[in-house]
């Protein structure tokens, strides 16, 4: 396969070369296109000879040159955001055109499934589109983070401030009852799906870590991080099954459709974009500064003088003794240096776009960093009137040094580190670790330097497409694409650290290979049946082949110190994983349009999946959607007040298959074996039903799009209900069955929600424009039914807080232990004068998902100056901060500063019996010593009331100020455009959450673990200066 792939690359590069040499131009027209309102040149305007496919686009200066056939009559000038203009050619050889802006254009074209561009007005479902500039202006290296606060109905969860950290994206809620299912959308670049997987792998030693798995370690990248944001032309978010029906099962959770920049006809354009940014810690917990390390108010030591305890419940800090705010002091200023150059251009018949970019990032955690190099070559060409070819190849190298997170990591150590000691004083002259606790608590800076993971990803993805117009109404499209990457990881756990000591040091080498091939063929026929009635039919075929494998070699027991190589290990453990997933799909799409008023789309798709049992392998699902522009019928189109109104209705079904190899029963090598040189196998703990059938999601969506005052005010409202039934769930079963989980079809989960978009242009006077856009959404999730005999499905168990689903509950529900209370909810005080936590019963204590979220973008522009800022509000969403609990238990936080103080806990005591309680106000005075409250789980720190927090926030997500030099200043220079910008992220944050920024999941992207934070690199505030120059 690889061979074929390389051939494709060469073939494609060939196409580009051929073009620039081969074409002759018999008759040409040239000219310039400008904006009617301010005379600025308009780049990227489409110019087409009416009735043909011959055309070009304007360059950055708004200039164009076009060869036209002898009989050409009319040129059509069109550009997104402008009213399309037709110009009669006559005998002219030079045609200059001014286009008038269409404030909020109704002729917007959006990219839908398979890169098919459709007029937004024809769609019967909601789609939201973002321009490349909206992505790049955030200066977020990970495009998922760049979507934060911008898209209604989308929940993004970043895994923190580690450079290259993964981010999780969920559109319209969690659709699966399975803790291991993928709830994330499909990522598609130029019509071909690419991997956005986050592979956690295995980074744990055989003994000595309590981590639940690698998903809480190292904030691994979701692979969309490899995409260079500067290459993006626009992103279209397809939210529901109606929008993604053609993509089939892989897009059952929605799709993120990325269109990359293409070259434009004319003189080659060079764009250089460079930015430098600084990242700092944006929020941290308050520490107590009164007491030092020790226990029971004393500095305690073993008889040999070693400190006995690592807690901070010691004596008061004497005057003059320094106290260190390690939560702040540990972190450094991170930096990002991002450079990107693109060269693009072409002729009317062929275009090319190439880019190269390099990002160097240094994290706020010492010694951490990440970098990314991308290279892209793409081109399009029109071989003849009938045959067009396009292609693109991307090469990416990314990776870095990741700081440890999770259990026994930098952050768990930091949460225990006594403020009497400077965390940055971390190493002895002989290279050994320096810490205050006699080896009990690692020094976080020492592990940051010596116990980390390096990853190195090499990736190639690209596609090659053909378009053939058989006749004017029939065309044929074929596109094949591939995405291949390898990820090499290397982790070291030195023998003298907590995580490595039990195995005397370990090193893990992990190699992950991923390969995905997609082939799409579709044939489109479209015809005007009558003047008013138009229709088109598309039928398509899709083939997907995804394979991956992973080899993990772990060496334990170092012979030599400081030699981090497998050859230095004594004991070896190997692990291999492989998967293959194939899908064949056939689909059809029928569009009917009446008088530009009513649009009906019917789709149907049948998939055959390799992961289902043969009898259930094939499944069909239909969809229908209707768009009705009722203002046309009412004749309001010319109205200045209410000029556009559309109603959308859709119904869609989509199927979903199982993961590879889930059917049936297997034996696997027993973990830990060979044992004493003997190998062993065991029954795999998961049993898959041989009768698995596809899951089915059914969605109903109703929406409306209303525009007023000549489009100066627009509202787009959507309501949806989406039910996913026959879920393929690993049902937890009694171990006495011989299995731990049984994969079967069971249960139903529902998501319903409202998405609201408001666009306003409050002021548009001359060159000054103020636009505002608001998005707001709320999603409600409900578990309608559970697999028979199963009361709950635990997604994440952090013991003190569990995320689990029960019937009638919802995804994101958090359970924990609560203080005992009387029937009026008053705190019940024990006879010892302290409150008590009911540690035996899990009760619902919160939900990790927000109640609603919204974002408001305001943009002010005046000539070349533009100021834009995004305010983001997230209401609700509870989070358990694991490190906060550690810090409470160890007397480090400000909230543990009240000690040696007599208090009477507010609450009641039961002076009656258990059966006949009689409550009186508590009047027992007790002395808080420190340990007897803060360290005590039964009295305090196990209570969800203490450790689970509301993570609502209001933040200035992004502020961007840019200035473009006026065009006349550049007249006699090489430059066509020069823009300077300043960007700030998270400049302001208001949240009731105590601790670090609550945005930063402890578990990695793709883990389905929501509501846990505290053991990963925290979020940052960032400042970036940029310059963008076009030649």
């Amino acid at each position: 396969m690889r061979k074929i792939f390389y051939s494709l690359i060469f073939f494609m590069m060939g196409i580009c070369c051929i073009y620039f040499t081969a074409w002759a131009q018999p008759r040409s027209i040239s000219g310039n296109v400008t904006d009617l309102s301010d005379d600025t040149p308009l780049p990227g305007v489409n110019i087409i000879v009416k009735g043909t496919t011959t055309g070009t686009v304007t360059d950055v200066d708004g200039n164009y040159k076009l060869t036209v056939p002898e009989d050409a009559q009319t040129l059509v000038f069109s550009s997104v955001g402008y009213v399309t203009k037709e110009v009669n050619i006559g005998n002219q050889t030079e045609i200059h055109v001014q286009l008038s802006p269409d404030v909020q254009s109704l002729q917007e074209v959006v990219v839908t499934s398979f890169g098919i561009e459709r007029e937004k007005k024809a769609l019967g479902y909601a789609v939201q589109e973002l321009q490349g500039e909206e992505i790049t202006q955030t200066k977020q290296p990970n495009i998922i983070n760049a979507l934060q606060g911008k898209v209604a109905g989308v929940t993004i969860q970043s895994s923190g401030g580690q450079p290259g950290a993964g981010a999780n994206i969920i559109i319209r809620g969690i659709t699966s009852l399975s803790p291991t299912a993928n709830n994330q959308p499909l990522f598609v670049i130029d019509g071909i799906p690419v991997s956005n997987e986050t592979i956690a792998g295995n980074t744990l030693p055989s003994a000595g870590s309590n981590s639940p798995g690698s998903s809480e370690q190292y904030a691994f990248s979701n692979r969309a991080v490899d995409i260079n944001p500067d290459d993006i032309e626009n992103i279209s978010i397809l939210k529901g099954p109606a929008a993604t029906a053609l993509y089939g099962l892989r897009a059952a959770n929605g799709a993120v459709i990325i269109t990359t920049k293409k070259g434009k006809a004319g003189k080659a354009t060079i764009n250089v974009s460079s930015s430098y940014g600084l990242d700092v810690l944006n929020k941290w917990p308050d520490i107590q500064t009164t007491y030092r390390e020790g226990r029971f108010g004393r500095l305690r030591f073993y008889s040999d003088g070693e400190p006995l305890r690592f807690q901070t419940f010691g004596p008061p800090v004497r005057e003059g003794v320094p106290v260190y705010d390690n939560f702040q002091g540990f972190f450094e200023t991170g930096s990002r240096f991002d450079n990107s150059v693109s060269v693009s251009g072409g002729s009317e018949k062929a275009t090319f776009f190439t880019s190269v970019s390099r990002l160097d990032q240094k994290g706020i955690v010492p010694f951490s960093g990440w970098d990314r190099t991308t290279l892209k070559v793409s081109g399009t060409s029109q071989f003849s009137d009938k045959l067009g070819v396009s292609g693109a190849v991307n090469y990416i190298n990314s990776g870095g040094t990741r700081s440890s997170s999770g259990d026994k990591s930098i952050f768990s150590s930091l949460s225990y580190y006594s403020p009497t000691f400077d965390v940055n004083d971390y190493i002895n002259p002989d290279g050994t670790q320096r810490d205050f606790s006699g080896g009990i608590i690692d020094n976080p800076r020492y592990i940051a330097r010596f116990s980390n993971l390096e990853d190195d990803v090499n990736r190639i993805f690209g596609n090659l497409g053909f378009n053939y117009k058989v006749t004017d109404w029939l065309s044929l499209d074929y596109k094949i694409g591939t995405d291949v990457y390898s990820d090499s990881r290397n982790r070291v756990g030195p023998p003298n650290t907590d995580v490595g000591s039990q195995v005397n040091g370990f090193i893990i080498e992990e190699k992950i290979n991923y390969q995905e091939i997609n082939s799409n063929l579709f044939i489109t026929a479209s015809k005007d049946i009558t003047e008013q009635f138009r229709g088109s039919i598309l039928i398509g075929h899709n083939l997907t082949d995804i394979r991956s494998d992973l080899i993990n070699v772990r060496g334990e027991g170092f012979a030599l110190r400081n030699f981090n190589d497998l050859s230095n290990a004594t004991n070896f453990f190997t692990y291999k994983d492989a998967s293959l997933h194939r899908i064949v799909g056939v689909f059809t799409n029928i569009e009917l349009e009446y008088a530009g008023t009513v649009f009906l789309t019917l789709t149907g798709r049948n998939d055959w999946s390799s992961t289902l049992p043969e009898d259930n392998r094939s499944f069909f699902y239909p969809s229908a959607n209707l768009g009705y522009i009722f203002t046309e019928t009412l004749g309001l189109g010319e109205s200045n007040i209410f000029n556009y109104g559309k109603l959308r209705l859709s119904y869609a079904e989509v199927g979903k298959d199982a993961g590879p190899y889930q059917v049936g029963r297997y034996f696997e090598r027993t973990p830990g074996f060979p044992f004493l040189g003997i190998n062993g196998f065991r029954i795999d703990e998961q049993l898959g039903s041989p009768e698995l059938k596809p899951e089915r999601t059914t969605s109903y969506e109703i929406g409306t799009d209303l525009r007023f005052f000549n489009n100066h005010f627009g509202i787009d409202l959507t309501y949806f209900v989406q039910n996913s039934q026959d879920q393929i769930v690993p049902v937890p079963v009694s171990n006495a069955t011989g299995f731990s989980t049984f994969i079967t079809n069971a249960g139903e989960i529902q998501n319903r929600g409202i998405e609201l978009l408001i666009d306003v242009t409050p002021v548009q006077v001359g060159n000054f424009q103020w636009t505002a856009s608001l998005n707001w959404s709320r999603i409600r999730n409900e578990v309608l039914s559970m697999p028979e005999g199963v009361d709950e499905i635990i997604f994440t168990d952090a013991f003190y807080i569990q995320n689990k689903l029960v019937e009638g509950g919802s995804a994101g529900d958090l359970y924990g232990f609560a203080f005992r209370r009387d029937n009026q909810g008053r705190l019940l005080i024990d006879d010892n004068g302290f409150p008590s936590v009911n540690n035996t019963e899990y009760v619902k204590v919160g939900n990790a998902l927000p109640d609603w979220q919204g974002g408001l973008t305001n943009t002010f522009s005046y000539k070349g100056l533009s100021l834009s800022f995004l305010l983001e509000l997230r209401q609700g969403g509870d989070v358990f901060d694991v490190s906060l609990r550690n810090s409470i238990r160890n007397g480090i936080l400000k909230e543990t500063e009240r000690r040696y103080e007599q208090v009477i806990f507010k609450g009641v005591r039961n002076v009656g019996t258990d059966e006949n309680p009689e409550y009186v106000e508590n009047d027992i005075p007790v002395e808080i010593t420190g340990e007897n409250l803060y360290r005590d789980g039964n009295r305090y720190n196990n209570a969800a009331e203490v450790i689970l927090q509301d993570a609502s926030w209001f933040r200035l997500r992004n502020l961007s100020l840019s200035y473009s030099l006026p065009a006349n200043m550049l007249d006699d220079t090489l430059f066509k455009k020069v823009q300077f910008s300043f960007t700030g992220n998270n400049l302001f944050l208001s949240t009731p959450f105590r601790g670090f920024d609550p945005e930063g999941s402890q578990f990695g992207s793709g883990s389905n673990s929501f509501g846990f934070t505290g053991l990963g690199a925290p979020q940052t505030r960032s400042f970036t200066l940029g310059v963008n120059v076009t030649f």
Partner: protein
Amino acid sequence: MKRTVYTYIILVLLMSSSCEDYLGGDTNIDPTRVSEVSLEALLPTSIEATSEAHYQVALETSQVAQHMADYFSAGADIHDVFRIGTGWTNIYLRAMANAKQLERQAEEQNAPHYAGIAKIIQAINLGLATDNWENVPFTEAYQGAEELTPAYDTQQAIYETIIPDLLNSAIEDLQATSSSSSPGADDLVYRGNLEQWIKTANVLKARYAIHLTNKGAAEAANQALQALSGLAYTSNEDDFQLFYDERNLNPWHARIGLAINTGNYIIAHSEQLVEAMNGDTYGVFDPRLPIIADKGTSDNYIGMVNGTGEGNTVNLTVDTWYASANNPLLMVTYAETKFIEAEARFLANGGDINSIGSTDAAYLAYLEGIAVHMMKIGVDTAEIINYIANPKVSVGAENMTLELIMKEKWIALFLNPEAWVDLRRYDYSQALYKDFELPENHNPQLGGQFIQRASYPFDELSRNTQAVEANMKELPAEMWRDQ
């Protein structure tokens, strides 16, 4: 129009044509796992899991038995709810499940030698389960999707029929003259020595017989003696134990001993044990104490009072015998056999908790039990002689008491789940276990009563709710065995 429709249909058909080759065949078969395995692949798995289960169970029950105390003074340590979830998983999902599979395959393949061992492994795991949770699943277990919520067997059925049947049938299997295959190196404990497996089956028969002293002491004693009259352990070499290596570390070594090195203190020796061995309680210093407990640089051996989480000088460091990397995890020992014999002979002779004096045979078994355990953990011969010669130990048959037997058995069962069974059989009697008291901060819900059982794990509760709820009992409710 018609033509268009036809073309359309044909195109759709063409596109969907034959994808069987592409999707079928081996496409959905995991290349890294297998659908069938041999007998010798399953045996080591179920043995290793059995040993792991013993660790998991003892980690908790040794706190109730007051061998150990908990640094966090929670759960078993203070007689609060404890569930041994990982122990249950090891017993049901790893040890017994694979042993059951081994038994089924062995029977299909006419390999009774494997089947016999598989049954012994099931018996010891089922015993472990019933001794902690009372009623537990077995007869309805291991049917996969056919029975997702297996009902539980009563402890009575397990003791009276299931375990004896398993062990008797195991002995028969192991005595079979022909077996299509027999274990060798894959038998991680006995390396294919079937006689030692038969011995183990007999010792287990004796163990589960003597467990029923509350159902008739004489009957239980006679049953036990009868089992031991067959082929049974005759030396420490016979012990059912698992050695680990530096690649697969002994769990006590890795998870308690090594954990201490990085400040992860989990459990330490109980004051009850330390005082029983340092002379405080019985007036004689037990030379095993320095071998099983490490007092570091402290002057004295001080244990942790259960329920306080502190005050100790001793720890189960990697330098102690049980947490050393090189020593095996003990499951059934010759020493235990000797104490079963001593107790059985004492009871068979009409002895009871208060009586003094027994037969020479009972007395000898008691002394031998002490000696072989001391030898097992490497006490110097001189010190063994010295200890046994102490008049408080060698009291003579005429002064023999059940207290001496049970106290010494309790020490010899250090970190073995059996210790807690004995304590419950004798209702935590202070007549047998001197100064054995409730822990500090004792769970107030128990109203001063001792805990009698582990609670069913959360996993099982949520996955097999009906069965669990039908069998759940209060923490101080005695098991059928002890009534």
